[in-house]
């Protein structure tokens, strides 16, 4: 039964265990040893912890057999050999897959590049097609010589009428 104050018991027990384990620094050791010298209950607690720890020796250490060593080494060798064989069998498939990915990525990049250029760069042919009606009558329009007059005629629908006649 502990006669230590309940609220400090876990902390003191921690210090006692750490003291037994050699995990306290010099100052902490000095303080706990001073308390142990003054406190019978604390000394009994320390001895009790120490004895319980010694009782763990009853568990004993395991002794493995030669057959365990042999089977362990065989198991590791076999597992590693299987993994190497699998890796070798998979190598052609992985190479093909890598080439497929590279080829697909290249083709995709090419398509993206082509369409990007196509969208971003103006098509001179498109401009020509759009301007074809003007080009076809350029000589006549030059004779007029006044762009505002031409725009007025366009607003009056003169050129639309001509276009519908031609179609």
């Amino acid at each position, binding site marked *: 039964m502990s006669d230590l104050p309940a609220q400090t018991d*876990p902390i003191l*027990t*921690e210090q006692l*265990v*750490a003291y037994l*384990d050699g*995990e306290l620094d010099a100052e902490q050791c000095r303080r706990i040893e001073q308390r142990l010298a003054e406190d019978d209950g604390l000394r009994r607690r320390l001895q*009790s*912890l120490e*004895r*319980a*720890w*010694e*009782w*763990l020796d*009853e*568990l*004993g*250490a*395991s*002794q*493995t057999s030669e057959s*365990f*060593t042999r*089977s*362990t*080494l065989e*198991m*590791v060798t076999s*597992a*590693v050999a299987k993994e190497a064989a699998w890796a070798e069998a998979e190598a052609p498939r992985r190479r093909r897959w890598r080439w497929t990915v590279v080829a697909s990525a290249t083709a995709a990049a090419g398509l993206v590049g082509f369409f990007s250029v196509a969208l971003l760069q103006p098509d001179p042919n498109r401009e020509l097609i759009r301007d074809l009606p003007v080009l076809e009558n350029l000589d006549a329009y030059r004779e007029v010589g006044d762009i505002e007059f031409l725009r007025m005629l366009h607003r009056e629908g003169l050129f639309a009428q001509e276009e519908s006649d031609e179609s």
Partner: protein
Amino acid sequence: MGDPDVRLMLEVRDGSAAAFEELVLRYQDRLITVLEHLVGNRDSAEDLAQEVFLRVYRARKRYEPGAKFSTWLFTIANNVAANARRGRARRREVTLRSRDSGPLGPRPLDVLLQVSSGQIPARQLDKAEACDIVRLAVAALNERQRMAVLLSKFEGMSYVDIGETMELTPQAVKSLLSRARNALREVLEPYFQSGDHPTAGERMPDTSAE
């Protein structure tokens, strides 16, 4: 690089099968000791130990020398044991099997707890009974407490090394070990208060009537 086992592992990294065999020989007993007391079963402990060695070998190319090889090895062991525990939990297997009958009778853990609480008096024990008592006391700890106790007791690891193995701070290890060792003390105290520590081959005289 003062750790000879680190040098051996570097030889394994460079392809030496003999170095790997030497590491297995050096660590198999230690590893199985900790694992057996952790999982409570020798066969399972051997299976887990082999898994640990397999992982060590698989990781050989990536091995970077740290302070101690043993800390790295037992970190793997802790991870393997934790994975096995999760697997058992999913399969609902009973891992810490109490014997149906033994020196403490049909329900040894109940007897242990009753003695610990003072409900029934402790009596002196022979060696087999003492081993049973201690085994059950350790089994009554939770897995983290048990691992910390076993690493401290059987591997002599410092709090820093235990923390590295179990991914805990040294303060967390200190608290964990304190709770574990206090729990062991509470369970075992009635027994060592009832007489001297049993020695091999002897049965202590029954002094309870004196």
